[in-house]
C-alpha cells in the first residue's frame, strides 16, 4: 500500500520545483546575462510541453513534467491552449537566439508564464482537490 496524504500533493510540489528551475535559469539569463542553465532547463520544458500533447506512458521516465494527472490539471488551470502554443514558440525562440537583444524581452514573458504555473502548483499543493468528478464521469462513459 502507498501512503496517500502528502504523496498525492507531492506531484504538485514537483511541478512547482520544475517551474522554479525554469524561472531561475531565465532570471539568471535576463538579469545577469548568464546562460549556462538556460538550454538544459528550457529543453526539458519544451520536451515536456510537446509530450503533454501526445499522452503515453512508455516514455514517462524521459520527460521532466506534465506527465501526471496533477501536472496536466494544473497546466489546464493556468495556461490556455493558446498559452501553451505561445510558450512553445517562445522557448524555441530563446533557445534559437539567446544572444539576440530582443530575446530577453521574450524570456521575461516566459518568466511570467512559468511563475504563474509555479504559484498555481504551490496553491494546489496547499489545497489539493480530488480527481475531478467530470473526468471520472468521462472515464466511465468512455470505457
Amino acid at each position, binding site marked *: 500500500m502507498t*501512503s496517500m496524504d502528502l504523496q498525492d500533493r507531492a506531484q504538485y510540489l*514537483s511541478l512547482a520545483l520544475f517551474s522554479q528551475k525554469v524561472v531561475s535559469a531565465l*532570471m539568471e539569463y535576463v538579469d545577469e546575462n548568464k546562460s549556462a542553465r538556460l538550454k538544459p532547463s528550457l529543453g526539458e520544458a519544451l520536451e515536456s510541453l510537446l509530450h503533454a500533447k501526445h499522452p503515453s506512458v*512508455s516514455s514517462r*521516465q524521459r520527460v521532466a513534467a506534465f506527465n501526471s*494527472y496533477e501536472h496536466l490539471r494544473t497546466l489546464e488551470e493556468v495556461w490556455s491552449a493558446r498559452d501553451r502554443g505561445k510558450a512553445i514558440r517562445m522557448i524555441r525562440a530563446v533557445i534559437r537566439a539567446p544572444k539576440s537583444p530582443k530575446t530577453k524581452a521574450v524570456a521575461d514573458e516566459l518568466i511570467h508564464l512559468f511563475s504563474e504555473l509555479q504559484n498555481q502548483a504551490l496553491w494546489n499543493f496547499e489545497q489539493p482537490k480530488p480527481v475531478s468528478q467530470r473526468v471520472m464521469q468521462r*472515464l466511465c462513459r468512455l470505457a
Partner: protein
Amino acid sequence: MSAGLADLLHDAAVLHRFVDFIEEYCKEQERSQTYADASGLFFQYVEKLAAGVKQELGKEIERATRFPKRLPLLRSNIWTLKNYLRLLHALIKPAADAHTLTIPAPLVDLASQQLQRVERMKNSSIVILLTSELMYFQRPHTDIKDQARIVESFIPKASFPPKLGFIELPYSQGPSFFTNLAIYHEIGHFVYEELSNSDPLHPDMAALKSAVVRSVRKALGNGAKDPEAFAIAVRIIENWIQEIFCDLFAIRLVGPAFSFAFVEILGMLGFLSQNATLKFNPTHPAAACRFAEHVNLLRDDLWWNAIANVDADQKKLLERLAKLPRSSYKFYLDEKTLGPQRLVQVFLDVVVPAIRKLVRQVTPENATAVKRFENARSSIEDCLRVGVVPHTPTAGAPDPVSVINSAFCFYLTSLPKVVKQFEGVKAENDVAVHSLWTRRLEMWTMKAIEDAQMQDRFRRIKGAVL
C-alpha cells in the same frame, strides 16, 4: 528597507530556524540511537541539505537587493523550498522513531540482504519509518527523488542517496514478527518504482508498460485521446499492477508465509468480508483476484505441494477465494458507484500476464528454497515444540526462509498444543496466554534468523564453511 525586502527577509529567517532545528535533530538521533540499514544515510542527506539551504538563503537576499523587481519570484522560491522541506519533515520523525529497539531489526536486515539479489537492486537500501496508522506503507520515493534532483541544482552539496526506499510499519507492530512479513510487499513497491525509473527500462518492465498502453487504449477506444481520462485510467491500472506485482514479489522472496501474513493483516483490518473481497477500487484490485495470483504462483513454484499437509483456516481461505470466478469481480469508484468494468477485463487479460513475467525475471529462482524448507521443516518445528530457538545440531542455524515458513505453519497449526503442553488444560482458552506464546514463538523465530545472519557473516569473513 522596502516592505517587500522585509517580507522576504522574514520568510528567509523562518526557514533558517526550521532547517537549523531539523539539522540538529538528525545529528542528535545519530548520536543517541542505533538504526538498521540506511536511516543514517538519510539523516546525513538532511543535514547537508539544511546546511546548503542556510547558505542559499543568504544568496537569495543578496539577489533581492540587486534586483528588487524579482522580490515576488524570490518569495515563491523560498515558499517552494520550504514545502520540499515539509515533505522531508514528514519522514524525519518516523525514521528517527524506527531505531533497532522498536523494529524487527533481523527481519529488516534479512529483507535488505535479499533485496541485493533482485535484478537492478544491488546497493539499494531501506529506511524504516514508524507510522501512527495501523497499516503498512511504502512511501513512494520517485517524487522525492525528482524533487531532490531539482533542489540539488540549487544546493549542489546535497545529493539524495541513490536507491533509497522508505518503508513504513505501524508502531504497534514493531516488536511483532509474522505480520511484519508485509514489509516484503512494501519493498516490492520500492523495487517497482526503481524498475519503472531505470534507464534503459528492464525489457519486461517495458513490455508491461506497453501492455498498460494497449489495455487502456482497448478499454477507452477513441476516448484514449482525452489526456485527463487517459492519465486517470493509466493511474488506476498502475495502482492495480503495483499491488499484484508486490504480492508476487513478496512470495518469491519469502514463500507462502507472506500469503498467510497477508490474510492475517486483511483479517485484522476487516477487509475479508464476502463483498469486500470481490471489489476492485481505484487504488487496489479485489482481494480475491490477489489471492488467485498468490495461489497460482505458489503452485508454479512448488510451494503449494510443500505445504500440502498444512491444515490451516488461512490456507483454506486462500484456496476458496482463489477459486471465485473472474466474472464476479466488480470495479467500484467509491462505496456505491460502479466504475468502468472494461478496465478490470483488460487488466486481467492483457496486463496480469506481463506482471507475472516481470516478477519471475527480476527475482531469484526459489526452487532450492522450497527443497531446503521441506528438509528443515520438521527439525525446526521440533525445536519450537519444546520451546527452543530453531537450530540444527550439525549444520548450524537453518536458512531464514525455511525458519520463517516453518514457524508460520507451526503458529497456524500447533500453537494450541504448545500452550496446552506448557500451561496446562486450563490455559487452553486463555487469550492472554495465547498472545504470550505467540510473542515467544515470534522471538524464537527472530533469534533463529539473527543466528543465521551471524553465521553467514562469519562464513563470509572467514571464507570457510563452518
